[in-house]
């Protein structure tokens, strides 16, 4: 690294320190000017300093789709998530891929984290599947149950027992009774709606058992399925979501109040043209989501509803599954034509709007886990920023103090250089905000503070070199010039190693580590620039001043104090100067 520059610089450097200083001055003026012109005078702050929510989504491997995680799908997912989040009225959110299978979503403060999580994490894979079997609240009814599925138990009755009741699978007997009671009411509720479109208030879901038709596995799984706990539901949803649309699946109702065996998907979410949230006052179903199908979807939907209408309950129902959970499972009386369907099921205004929003922008091509979610209130963010700044100030002050004690007058040079370094770092960070979307986060602040040490070290290397030269009996001006090539090489070599570390970190790592690596790399580069263009020329100029040149004892370069053993002549010339000024 050092080698190429060596020849060019060392001979002339003594003669043109002014030019180098001018270069750096122009750079500072240009950067500062650019900063004001761009209208940003503070760096863009990351979520952890400004407040907000940050999600890291990790694409999940899906069985049967080995190559699903690819750049195309990731980019599609990013744009869909972006639209969804912005659909909530957030404008400054930022969604970007990170590495091969992560997506980072940053949402500034002021947005409801819960809502954001829903929007971001929902795959929104929507399927309409015919219901084969279902148990409502209790477990099985005694009567029909021709087929095994003995245990199916299930869930507590929605209204009555809620989650507490129905212990998982098992206990058929207990559940039987519950169910008997629940069914009639439930059926009624079901049927009432559904003239044109079908809808079931969630409550109405309580379906009747009847469970013929079981492929053994499915039946066994179904029996074991426990929808009463969140964990059980989550597991079931995940499994169902990963199943192929053409497979039969078992699924839970969203509230855990029913479970289903569902046939292959007949209509998919991709057939949905548009979705909107509507308040339905007519039959008291409250907020519903209205779906408009495209032509293909409308036809398929008409076909399937026609087919289902001819069947008996529960097989005349279709389940609307979203990400593996049954949102509602209305029954069908007649074929529904016209390409419109509604989903009902105990929505609130917000949840219906959210679902409509998600459905309008389509399903994500991949399903994602939330790998990391961080919510930082503006208060904490401010506190962390403040703490970082205080730490930086204290660190800087300690370094300066140490330098003053040890290097005395030379510390002025070090301080000025640190100052220049700080100004450059700050302005570049500010400009990189709008430029490449750089956001200053806590690790980046950390990196900048750590960099104080690296920057200051370059001065130490150089100063020690100069002192060594003085110890060998040189006067300051030649010492400054002779010490430089050797110091320069050391600085370049060590900064290169430091930069290498930062670059590898930046390229290889994910998340917050990158912010840190970026700052570290940036400051290392600036360190080289500052030492070459500022510190060295400044030393050359100062060496001509009597204060330093004659080795005043506060200059930090007093040959006597440094223990120089110069030829006698030189020593004599230094001594008088010393006494004079002292």
């Amino acid at each position, binding site marked *: *690294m050092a080698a190429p520059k060596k020849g060019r610089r060392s001979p002339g450097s003594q003669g043109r320190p002014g030019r180098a200083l001018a270069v750096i001055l122009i750079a500072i003026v240009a950067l500062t000017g650019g900063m004001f012109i761009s209208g940003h005078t503070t760096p863009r702050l990351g979520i952890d300093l400004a407040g907000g929510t940050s999600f890291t989504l*990790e694409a999940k491997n899906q069985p049967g789709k080995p190559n699903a995680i690819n750049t195309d799908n990731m980019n599609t997912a990013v744009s869909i998530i972006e639209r969804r989040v912005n659909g909530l009225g957030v404008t400054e959110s930022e969604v970007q891929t990170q590495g091969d299978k992560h997506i980072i979503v940053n949402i500034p403060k002021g947005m409801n*984290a819960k809502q954001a999580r829903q929007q971001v994490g929902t795959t929104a894979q929507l399927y309409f599947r015919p219901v084969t079997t279902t148990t409502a609240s209790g477990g099985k009814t005694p009567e029909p149950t021709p087929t095994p599925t003995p245990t199916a138990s299930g869930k507590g009755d929605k209204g009555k027992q809620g989650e507490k009741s129905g212990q998982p699978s098992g206990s058929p007997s207990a559940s039987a009774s519950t169910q008997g009671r629940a069914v009639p009411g439930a059926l009624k509720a079901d049927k009432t709606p559904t003239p044109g479109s079908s809808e079931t208030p969630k409550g109405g879901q309580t379906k009747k058992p009847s469970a013929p038709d079981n492929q053994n596995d499915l039946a066994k799984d179904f029996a074991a399925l426990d929808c009463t706990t*969140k964990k059980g539901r989550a597991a079931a949803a995940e499994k169902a979501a990963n199943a192929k649309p053409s497979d039969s699946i078992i699924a839970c109702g969203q509230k855990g109040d029913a479970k289903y065996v569902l046939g292959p998907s007949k209509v998919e979410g991709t057939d949905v043209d548009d979705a909107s949230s509507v308040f339905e006052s007519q039959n008291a179903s409250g907020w519903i989501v209205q779906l408009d199908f495209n032509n293909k979807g409308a036809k398929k939907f008409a076909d399937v509803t026609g087919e289902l209408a001819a069947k008996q309950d529960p097989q005349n129902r279709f389940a609307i599954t979203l990400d593996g959970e049954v949102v509602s499972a209305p029954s069908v009386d007649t074929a529904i034509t016209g390409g419109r369907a509604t989903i009902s099921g105990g929505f609130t205004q917000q949840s219906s709007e959210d679902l409509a929003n998600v459905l309008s922008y389509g399903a994500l091509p991949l399903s994602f*886990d*939330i*790998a*990391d*979610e*961080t*919510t930082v209130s503006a208060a*904490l963010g401010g*506190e*962390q920023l403040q*703490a*970082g700044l205080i*730490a930086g100030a204290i*660190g*800087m002050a*300690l370094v300066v103090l*140490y330098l003053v004690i*040890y290097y*005395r007058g030379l510390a002025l040079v070090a301080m000025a250089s640190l100052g220049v370094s700080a100004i450059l770092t700050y302005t570049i960070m500010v400009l990189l905000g709008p430029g490449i979307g750089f956001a200053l986060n806590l*690790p980046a602040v*950390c990196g900048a*503070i750590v960099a*104080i*040490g*690296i920057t*200051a*070290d370059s001065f*130490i290397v150089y100063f*020690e070199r100069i002192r*060594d030269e003085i*110890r*060998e*009996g040189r006067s300051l001006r030649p010492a400054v010039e002779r010490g430089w090539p050797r110091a320069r*090489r*050391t600085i370049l*070599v*060590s900064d*290169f*190693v*430091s930069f*290498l*570390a930062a670059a*590898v*970190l930046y390229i*290889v*790592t*994910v998340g*917050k*580590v990158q912010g*840190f690596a970026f700052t*570290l790399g940036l400051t290392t580069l600036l360190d080289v620039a500052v030492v070459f263009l500022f510190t060295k020329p400044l030393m050359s100029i100062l060496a001509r001043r009597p204060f330093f040149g004659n080795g005043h004892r506060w200059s930090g370069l007093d040959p006597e*104090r*440094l*223990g120089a*053993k110069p*030829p006698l002549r030189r020593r004599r010339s230094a001594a008088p100067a010393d006494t004079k000024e002292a």
Partner: protein
Amino acid sequence: MSRLGTLGARLYRGDVGYDFVGKRKIWYAVSILITITAIVGLAVRGLNMGIEFSGGAVFTTPNTSVSTSEIRHTAEQAADDHTVVVQELGRGGLRIQISEMGTKEALPVQEALAKKLDVSSNKIDTQLVGPSWGEQIASKAWQGLAIFMVLVVIYLAIAFEWRMAVAALIALIHDITITVGIYALVGFEVTPGTVIGLLTILGYSLYDTVVVFDGLKEASKDLTKQNRFTYSEVANRSLNSTLVRSINTTVVALLPVGALLFIGGGLLGAGMLNDISLSLFVGLAAGAYSSIFIATPLVADLKERDPRMKALAKRVRAKRAAAAKAEATGDRSAEEGDDGPDLEDAAAAPAGLVGQRRQPASRNRGRGRPSGKRR
């Protein structure tokens, strides 16, 4: 300054010095001992992995009057089986950490906490981490570590020579082992912040080592053209002459990190700042130690195996034997400061050092050389 500055000068000239290379066995032993302790600690106690690696949730509440035990109770209830750790922060808030909890399960806990504290759930800072994320960070970190080491070894082998690259690598591994061992023994929590700190040590520890090596490379230039000092002696002298710089570098690096640690630990209680600076602090200290006590002696060891250096050492020994003999016969060489060779210690031979540095103090050199030639 004056005292340190004078010490610096004496170190530089070799008036005083510590025989790092000569006593290297002691320091190797110390390092091996520390390393073994670290490995045993790691094996026995393991690392206390933060929730970022095991998965879980951290909630940070605003300033509150609710007591820790009450909060713990609330959180335990909401989080059924999970372990809840509640910590008071310096600024009056609480930090509630629940390990091994899925991101979905964490929501009811957040709501329960918000209710208990009577604040909106937006006011509670949360961090939910799925277990795979931590693995991801860790595996990326290992990958980065491996790539970095390979690159650095290549770079150092080109910029210096392979022996220095090997020594630097060993010193680096040594630093990381010590840092990790301290984490295991003390039980500090390992978080992504720790990993960041650890990775930064890579750069920093090497930075220090590289500066020392740079001096060494320069001092050992043209070494084979003389026969007054062995490589080890030159290495030791160069180490001593850059000692002040090494100390300054370390102090200057530790000061801001110390400030971070102080502020991060004292003001914020816990979090990223604290984690990064803690591992940096430990690693930097280990790095300073290893670049002085381990890296350079290792280079010297490796170098002494080089046939040319062996030959040089032989010549030096022969010459010294001759000088000693001459001295024994009552020659006046003692007064010439040529008693150094007997001590096998470069520090006792200031004149030689000066000569090595191409110092123009020709009178010293003149004095030194005749004694050498007078064999």
